[in-house]
């Protein structure tokens, strides 16, 4: 690297910290403390709000998504998704659906879209896209938050670039608090992480002009949760 020596900076920064902490000698106990904390992954205080029976967690999730100004459409099964998408898109005069390509989605019968001349394309998002459809990993009752993981079949741009984001959420994936979602993530990725984890709570907004809230800043103007009662 020209002009700067980051390894020298590194040594100086760590040296300063160690000097400040008076720890230039035996460090084994501190190292053990750190190793323990990283291995235990202990919970801190978990608020009582979402420590509820499952049905009440589901009710809390719905109430919190409503507060976050997301739209929630309840469906009996995943098979109803194509019709629900068709209805929502045609109500909003949208003729395009950019879709993630996971097997859950591709396996569905998409013929309802054809009747309304809506095209469905599986690709990453581009500027100008009006609507996207993705799956999701979990719903978090505490704040009505949806967790999404990036992957080869679930490009991240679909969550941000299109004007409207339709997202499928299965009732069975609702958890009470963020911590439960982290535990499920670790299980799925064997203690690693997907490249991107998105926690999304309602549509994009900004209050940067005179502290007055406006919806639809840079991300989706509408977040539509297709809630599968599985």
């Amino acid at each position, binding site marked *: 690297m020209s002009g*700067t020596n980051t390894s020298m*900076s590194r040594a100086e*920064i760590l040296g300063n*910290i160690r000097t400040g*902490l008076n720890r230039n000698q035996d460090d084994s106990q501190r190292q053990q403390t750190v190793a323990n904390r990283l291995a235990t992954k202990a919970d801190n*205080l978990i608020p009582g709000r979402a420590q509820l029976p499952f049905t009440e967690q589901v009710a809390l999730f719905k109430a919190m998504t409503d507060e976050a100004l997301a739209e929630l459409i309840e469906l009996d099964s995943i098979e109803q998704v194509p019709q629900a998408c068709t209805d929502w898109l045609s109500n909003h005069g949208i003729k395009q659906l950019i879709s993630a390509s996971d097997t859950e989605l591709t396996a569905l019968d998409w013929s309802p879209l054809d009747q309304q001349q809506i095209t469905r394309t599986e690709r990453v998002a581009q500027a100008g896209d009006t609507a996207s459809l993705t799956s999701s990993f979990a719903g978090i009752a505490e704040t009505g938050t949806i967790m999404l993981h990036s992957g080869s079949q679930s490009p991240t741009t679909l969550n941000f670039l299109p004007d409207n984001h339709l997202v499928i959420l299965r009732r069975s994936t609702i958890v009470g608090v963020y911590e439960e979602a982290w535990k499920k993530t670790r299980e799925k990725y064997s203690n690693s*992480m997907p490249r991107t984890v998105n926690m999304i709570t309602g549509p994009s907004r900004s209050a940067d002009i005179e502290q007055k809230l406006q919806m639809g*800043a840079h991300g989706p103007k509408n977040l539509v949760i297709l809630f599968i009662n599985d």
Partner: protein
Amino acid sequence: MQINTPFFKQRAHDALADENLQKALGNLKAGFPEKRAIAVDRMPEFEELRNQGRDLKNHILEHLDLYIEQFESKVIENGGQVHWARTAEDANQIILDLCKQVDAKTVTKGKSMVTEEIGLNDFLEANGVQPVETDLGEYILQLREDHPSHIIAPAIHLNLEDVSEAFHEHHKRPKSDDPAVLMQEAREVLRDKFVAADVGITGANFCVAETGSTIIVTNEGNGDLTQTLPKTHIVVTSIEKVVPTLEDMTLFLRLLARSATGQEFTVYNTLSTGPRREGDQDGPENFHVVLVDNGRSEMVGSEFQDMLRCIRCSACMNHCPVYGAVGGHSYGWVYPGPMGSVLTPQMIGIEKGGMLPNASTFCGKCESVCPVKIPLPKLMRHWREDEFQKHLQPKAARYGLAGWAFMAKRPALYKPYARMASWFMKRLAGKKGRIKKLPLAGGWTDWRDMPAPQGTTFMKAWKEQQKNGEQP
């Protein structure tokens, strides 16, 4: 950024007389404190979360070197690179070099106070790379060649009219005074910039040692477009942002949104762990983390270590009567309000930043709302002591204090003078008990009346209480 901290007095004076600024600041006072109070009410465990937040930060700082090393090794394990920058200059050079590696012409930026601190935009521009701010508030400021006056609501000092003017001039579209129309305009203009950018630069609210992830927290979604679309994502962050685990990060996320905007949760909380993976259809091909020190490592083990707990929520300035009266620009550098008054002297030197720890009434509101319970008034007092010991205060203040100390240590002198001053002030105040003009106290009486002392002197009241056996 130019340092104007030595002119705090004049700038504060001008700010108080600036009608537009006062109007804009009215939005702050009515907004954030009330929203925070509601959010705190809805979370009965909030006080205990604050205690845990404080304790966890203290634990992290006691093991800071080890957690940073762990974070670094995890970033590398996930295919990213970590660059260490001792100074602002080092950080700027590293970032420029990374931009040049990919022949970057434009760089989109998410909101980042660390990049303000190191003066990144000016440096990139001077070296042929065009930075584009994408947070709505920061974008407005960039068009106006202005700087943030608040760490989470950067354009809080502006009114609708200012935004409307700036957009009309730069976007060449019909002028609008509808905030919704203005935001839509920014959305459309910035869409192309997001897609065209070669590099995306964001900050990080936290760096997770367990996983090597960085997290950004935004309401607009601009940070996500910034870091997902370009080929290279550079995270510019500082060494104290590291947290041990995802659970530990979660504790701070619960505190952050509520303390900052009074939201239950910020709209987008996004973790980034390394570059694009095999089979991924989008996401950056290069993932860099620039760890900035810029004076922080010297704070470890010093009387200012507590300041490193700060999670940049802005609650202290939102509730500060001084900030609310004079606005962020009066402070004259990047970080305003109580947290800025502690941090700024550390970063630019007490010689230049000495005015700021004095710009406080020590009312203690900042500490009472701080999510990690930083004793901000105490830390400002440390700076005042430091300033006094280095003989940096104005002569009038030094001699005044010395004179007062001389008297205070000699009760036989002090008592009669206190009685006399009290009598004199009462006479001056007349029947209403308010003094309109007081010699040597123009800084007070120019703006409001000085209440005259009530009743007797403190010493006399004390004596009588002791005699009557009352509790003081």
